[in-house]
């Protein structure tokens, strides 16, 4: 097959390709001959284009960057001392990225050299334990990925449009709702104003306000006011017997 196609597959991206060119031609990475490297880079892209191969956008973007740097290098240097000091080498950003990239590329190679489980070393064969709902050994590792995948799955079977747009604001409100209900536990009532004590941020105030409205809408709390412009009091909409929420109460003191 065409050498350049093999070439492309060997590189993880434009930085990788550039590093290769720099090494192959023994260029000094701190003083890259930008004209040389640009023409070599473009030659590779040209060859790929001639072969009608798709070139990822990132490779084209890098070509543009190289041409841009090259043109800046060609501009006559401004002689005045004061501006000369501020002017950064047009290649500086690219060099920084190349060095940074090289660091991780090498780290990846080092990682790859380590003996890997199930490839180089093996643990004892232990069959998967059956799912156990009764246990005292904490939780098996579970991730946000698992949680979100489960949510996505259940919603795909049961589409309810309003539910799909769970956004940050809604979750912030949920945080606040939990907080308010937590404060209401064991209290007859709390003053509306007290919900804002210590809060200075506008966003926080809005979230607290929305949480209160949501709680009223859901009939989880009631608002009471004794006099016009008097203190507004929040109280649980349903008196909860001491024993009833026992399980719930334990959760605050989880260990």
């Amino acid at each position, binding site marked *: 097959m065409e050498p350049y196609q093999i070439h492309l597959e060997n590189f993880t991206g434009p930085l990788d390709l550039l590093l290769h060119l720099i090494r192959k031609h023994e260029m000094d990475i701190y003083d890259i001959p930008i004209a040389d490297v640009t023409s070599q880079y473009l030659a590779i892209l040209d060859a790929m284009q001639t072969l009608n191969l798709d070139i990822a956008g990132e490779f084209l973007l890098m070509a543009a960057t190289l041409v841009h740097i090259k043109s800046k290098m060609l501009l006559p240097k401004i002689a005045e001392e004061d501006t000369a000091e501020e002017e950064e080498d047009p290649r500086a950003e690219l060099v920084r990225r190349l060095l940074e990239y090289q660091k991780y590329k090498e780290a990846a190679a080092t990682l790859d050299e380590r003996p890997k489980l199930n490839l180089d070393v*093996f643990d*004892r*064969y232990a*069959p*998967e*334990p059956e*799912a*156990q*709902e009764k*246990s*005292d*050994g*904490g*939780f*098996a*590792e*579970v*991730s*946000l990925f*698992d*949680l*979100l*995948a*489960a*949510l*996505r*799955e*259940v*919603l795909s*079977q*049961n589409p*309810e449009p309003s*539910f799909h*747009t*769970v*956004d*940050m604001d809604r*979750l912030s409100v*949920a*945080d606040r*709702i*939990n907080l308010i*209900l937590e404060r*209401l536990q064991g209290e007859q009532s709390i003053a509306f104003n007290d919900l804002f004590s210590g809060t200075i941020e506008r966003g926080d105030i809005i979230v607290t306000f929305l949480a209160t409205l949501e*709680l009223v809408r*859901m*009939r*989880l709390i*009631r608002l009471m006011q004794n006099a016009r412009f008097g203190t507004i009091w929040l109280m*649980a*909409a*349903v008196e*909860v017997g001491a024993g009833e*929420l026992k*399980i*719930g109460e*334990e*959760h*605050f003191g*989880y260990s």
Partner: protein
Amino acid sequence: MDIRDLVPAVEAVVFAAARPLDANQIAEILETESAAVQEALATLQFSCDEQNRGVFLEHVAGGYQLRTRPQFAEYLRRLGRRRPFRFSRAALETLAIIAYRQPVTRPDIEYLRGVDSGSVLKTLIEKHLVRILGKKDVPGKPMIYGTTPAFLELFGLPDLASLPTLQEFSELMDEGFAAETDDSLRDETEEQTPMPANGS
């Protein structure tokens, strides 16, 4: 392979094998003679006993297997009981709905899941991941559920607002299944469990 290398090689094979292997099978894996393996197995068996080890080589139906010594059985039963709680699909679904939809009632959850969720809910409450936030002032006074601080801790989140939204997640997951997809991945996903295969 000389006998000095063969003994540890045999130990490694017996240790890593999914089921008991006989001398012929081990010999095949190690590309050596069955008689040599037989000899190595005897040496291994002897040194397990001699060196005061926690395991011994047992000749069971069909082959050889390393097993823990019976005197430690009591402790190892404890190890079995410490087995961590693994989320069933139902538990994960219910937890996800509560996390993202809280404060939420049981009928809300059951509407979305399409099945009775009482026992799953109970388990999640017992596991201190879900709590009763209060009761709704409507006929029947349904309970309202939400997540606990332990839920946030389990997922390493500072607050609920830090939960990724479904939209963000979907954007990532709908990335083209390009060159990165391979067979080992496909094997995992076909198992139907949304959980990590090995709980790690």
